Each structure stands twice: as structure tokens, then as C-alpha cells.
């Protein structure tokens, strides 16, 4: 136990971080402790192996894609700020936030959550989920439990339903439209305790 201020002071630009992500001081401290626990060698940043060491994540069928989402293209390390910003996607949507016209969209908005999920499919980041990329995800989630034909038929049917402009790929808009009725806030949010 102790006052929060001393730990917060050790984190650079923590005010900006809290404003951008919407996390409370207590959350930031918890996340900072978690960051330090994952950063076993105390280097101040995380690399893919540190994530890979989390057993439950290694067991997740799309674990490596999730890890990939933390690292921007070309970067091999994640610092604390990036770590918190990515996790901010999973904050529940702030229902009573006033809609200021000039402020940037909050990280945990419905649209940004969808973008996060979209990039898990779209690994080459060309803005479209091709049939091939869809097959790869299906294979990851189902492993060896289904045959190649079953996978292909699932992929075909999915593209048929979602692909509105018939270019045999699913763009972000088509992705968003197909998930119109899904309660994204509930499915893509983590309840942070006080």
C-alpha cells in the first residue's frame, strides 16, 4: 500500500497517456506492474518472446497474431506507452462521453475496436481480407480438426455473404457492415477492476 503518486511520477508523459487512453491512475499503475512483470530482464521494453512466454497466450489459436498486433511494422520492441495504447482498445466504450467535434476519436470506440479485429485477419495490411488470409485464420482457429474442403466451403460462404462489391475480398467497410448487429462493445471489451 502507499500513495499512487510516486509510481506515476516514474512513468514519463503519464498525463498524456491517461488522457489519450482514458485509463485511471490505478489502472496505469497495475498495467505498469504487469509490464514490468512481463519484461523479465528489466530492459524497459517488450519483445515478441516476452509475450510468447505467457502460457495462456501460447495456447490461444491466434496468439501469434495478437502478439503481432502490438508491434508496428518494422519495429521489434514495444515500450510501455504503446503497450497501454493497444490495451486501451479493450476498454469498455464510455457511454456518457460528450461528442466533441474536434477531439480525435477515442481509442476504444466501436470503430477502432473493429479496426483492431480487422488487422488480425488482414496480415499483409492491404486493407482487404483476401480469401487466402481468411483461410489462414480459419486454419489457425480450427487446426487439424477439419478437412481442407470444409475450410474452403466455410471461407467461400463467408466471402459470399460479406463481399458486397464482388471483388472476392472483404474490405473494412464490408467487414463493419457484416458485424452491424453484433454487440462489439461487449465482445471486445475487458472489464478492468478498480
Amino acid at each position: 500500500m502507499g500513495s499512487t503518486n510516486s509510481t506515476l511520477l516514474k512513468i514519463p508523459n503519464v498525463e498524456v497517456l491517461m488522457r489519450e487512453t482514458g485509463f485511471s491512475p490505478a489502472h496505469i499503475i497495475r498495467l505498469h506492474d504487469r509490464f514490468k512483470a512481463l519484461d523479465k530482464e528489466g530492459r524497459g521494453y517488450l519483445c515478441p518472446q516476452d509475450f510468447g512466454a505467457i502460457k495462456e497466450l501460447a495456447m490461444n489459436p491466434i496468439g501469434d497474431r495478437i502478439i503481432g498486433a502490438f508491434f508496428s511494422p518494422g519495429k521489434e520492441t514495444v515500450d510501455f506507452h504503446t503497450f497501454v495504447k493497444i490495451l486501451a482498445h479493450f476498454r469498455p466504450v464510455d457511454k456518457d462521453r460528450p461528442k466533441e467535434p474536434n477531439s480525435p476519436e477515442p481509442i476504444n470506440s466501436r470503430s477502432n475496436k473493429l479496426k483492431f479485429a480487422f488487422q488480425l485477419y488482414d496480415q499483409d495490411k492491404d486493407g482487404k481480407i483476401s480469401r487466402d488470409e481468411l483461410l489462414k485464420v480459419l486454419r489457425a482457429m480450427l487446426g487439424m480438426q477439419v478437412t481442407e474442403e470444409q475450410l474452403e466451403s466455410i471461407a467461400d460462404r463467408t466471402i459470399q455473404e460479406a463481399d458486397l462489391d464482388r471483388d472476392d475480398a472483404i474490405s473494412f467497410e464490408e467487414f463493419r457492415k457484416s458485424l452491424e448487429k453484433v454487440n462489439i462493445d461487449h465482445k471486445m471489451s475487458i472489464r478492468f477492476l478498480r
Partner: protein
Amino acid sequence: MESYLFPFDSLICMLLGISFTVWFTLLLVFIIVPAIFGVSFGIRRLYMKSLIKLFEWATLRMERGAKEKNQHLYKPYSNGIIAKEPASLEQEIQEMRRGGAEPEFDMSDIFYFCRRGVESIVDDEVTKRFTAEELESWNLLTRSNYNFHHISTRLTVLWGVGVLIRYGFLLPLRVTLAFTGVGLLVVLTSIVGLFPNGRMKNYLSDKVHLMCYRICVRALTAIITYHDSENKPKNGGICVANHTSPIDVIILASDGCYAMVGQVHGGLMGVIQRAMVKACPHIWFERSEVKDRHLVAKRLSDHVADTTKLPILIFPEGTCINNTSVMMFKKGSFEIGCTVYPVAIKYDPRFGDAFWNSSKFGMVNYLLHMMSSWAIVCSVWYLPPMSRMEEEDAVQFANRVKAAIARKGGLADLLWDGGLKRGKVKEVFKEEQQKLYSKVLVGSSEDRSRS
């Protein structure tokens, strides 16, 4: 000039001499003699009660101090940062279907895996078990407090006094006792080893072992409560217990006599091991022999078959866990086919954390931590003996024993393998997830095609 220093010298010598004598007499009377006979004056329990009152006061003081300064008190929660959804894969996916439609693949299915993945990044079950348990109240040890800083003068003074007492008085006392205990163990077991094999030798060896372990228990100021002693392990059986620290051995061995199992070490440990084995048969393996599972199993079963030999003490988790849960038991000791006597050990974290984080601290560092804590308080439960049933295999038997230990000790019963602390997750676990998911999808489409 020098002439009047002499009386001072002799005065100081005399004072030192007297204090040493007093010191050693007290030590002998209050600690060593009771250890030999296995009685207790109750001093340690009194000490424990007064410590509890002190900690409660300290906690209240800190809370009040923080409120006065209007600062937000950071209370560590022992159950994690986030509330995890208890719903399983199937439930989640059914929910996600837009009411009534057949469960088929949907783009939103990925949300489930994605969320679980990120949840595990923020807080996962396994890493939590290998870091020291977090406390709700503060026990005046800075190592268990997150950001100690000046809240009130009184508290800081109290902490300072605590440091003085712990390092200035308790630590030297304990170190002395530890050396005495270990020294006596080595010397006396070697002497007993000179006797011819027989009942006399066994009797003496038991007494010697018990006495030395009791001295070591006092060296740690360990306050142990033994429950259900009627279930204590008997000859020709194996005693299994959950593992939190190397001290577990001392705690159990000060109440009963066991045959130890372990690797041969060099240095001081090696000396102790060689001396112990002279008095009664323990099982020490060479490093090369440890890999050969059949050899290990054979030596264990040979020992168990001989009913004059003491019950074997084994820690099947294979590694130190932080005493909030029990991890997977290795099946080796359960294949031998003799009676198993389970024992549950639960430490009270308020007085000092007994968990040995071997990746963070070495042995000497750990022992120093232990000896400069307030006390080690723990409870030991002897559970009724269990044997492998007809239809069970070794793994199921191991899990049954594990569940019984976890239940009795109030620890969480986890499927996870203690080896996960260092090793990689087996592919099997990932396949389980994939199997579950495919059952939801493909299983239902089969129904559809049939109808």
C-alpha cells in the same frame, strides 16, 4: 597514561564475558533444551499474537494517513486486474449468433479468441502463481510493500525499530541457531553411523534427526500447527506434499522421521547429505541417474518394500509454487503402487513470505530473507492415506491426491504443470482449444446436412 586503561580493558572483557554467558545460557535453556525434548514454552505463539496486533495498528495508521493527505491508496488486489468472463467457448459463440441462426462460422468469432488473448496478456493464471502473493495489509517489511514512502512519522519510526530488531537481534540469534542445528546434525549423525545396524541405531537416528530439525525450526522462528496427527505417514509408504520452499522439508521433518530424496550436491549440502545417510538410509541420486526414470522408480520401490525403512518424502510438483495453488503433480511417485500419505502445507503470508522465487533470488539471499522476517507461520494437515484404485491410472491417482491436498489447504487446484515456469506450453493445450471450436462449428453443420 596507559595504566588507567587497564581497569577499563578488564572491565570490558568482564562485561563481554558475562553477556556471552548469559546469552548462551538463555539460548540453551529456552531454545535448545526444549528442542531436544520436543516441548515448547509458548513464547513464539505469544510473539505471533503481539505481531498481529501491531500489523493491524500499522495498517489502520496508513489508511488514516493517506486519507488525511487526500491521496488515493493503492490497494493491491490478490485476484487480479481484470474480471474474466466465466463463459466457455461454446456459450460465447452461441451468444454471438444473431438469434436463432445455425451456428456457423462468423467473422465475429475471432472476437472471442482475441479478447481471451488480450486478457491473458493483462493477467494470466500461471505467472501469478510464480510471483509472491500480494497482501492486503502491510506487515512492516518493505519487501512486501509496493511504494513505501513517508506517510507518518510514527509509522516510519516503527518501521525503523522493526528493522533494528529484525537485523540486529533476530538475525544474529537465528544464524547462531542455524549453525548450531546444522553442525549438530552433521556431527551427531556421523556418530550414530558408527553404531551397528539395528533397533538402537534407528532409535538414536530418529532422535538425532528430530532434535536437529527442531533447532532449525527455532532458527527460523517457525510457528507450526500440526493437524490430524493420527494420519502421520508410516513406514513403507510415500509422503507427498505441496512445495513452496526448501523450508518445507524442515517443517515436516521436525514432526516425523522421513527418508529424503534428492540430487547429490557438492559443498555444504553434500557434507550434510553424506552425514545424514550414515545414520539412516536416505535416497540421494547422482545427477546422471536422475534422468533414468526406471532407475529412480526401482530405487524408490525397493526402499518402500523394506518396512524397516522410513517413509519417503516427495514433492511431486517438482518446483516451488507461491502457495496460492497446487500445480500438476508429476506421476512418477504415484506409479510405485504403495500407500500415499498426502500432506498439505499452507503458510500464513502475513508474517513473512516463504515462497522461493528461484529465478529471482539465490539460496543464500533467500535464507537471509527468511531469517530477517518476523516469523514463518504455517499449518500442516496430515490427510488420511490413499491408494491407487483398480480403474485408475497413475495420472488420475495423482490428480485425486492433488485435489485432496488443495481442498484441505484452501489452495486453488490448477491443471497447469509446474514445469510451465520454465518450459514451453505443450501443443496439446492449443489443440484442445481448436477441438472445442471446431465442435461448435462443424458438429452443428453435420446436423444440418443430415436433416
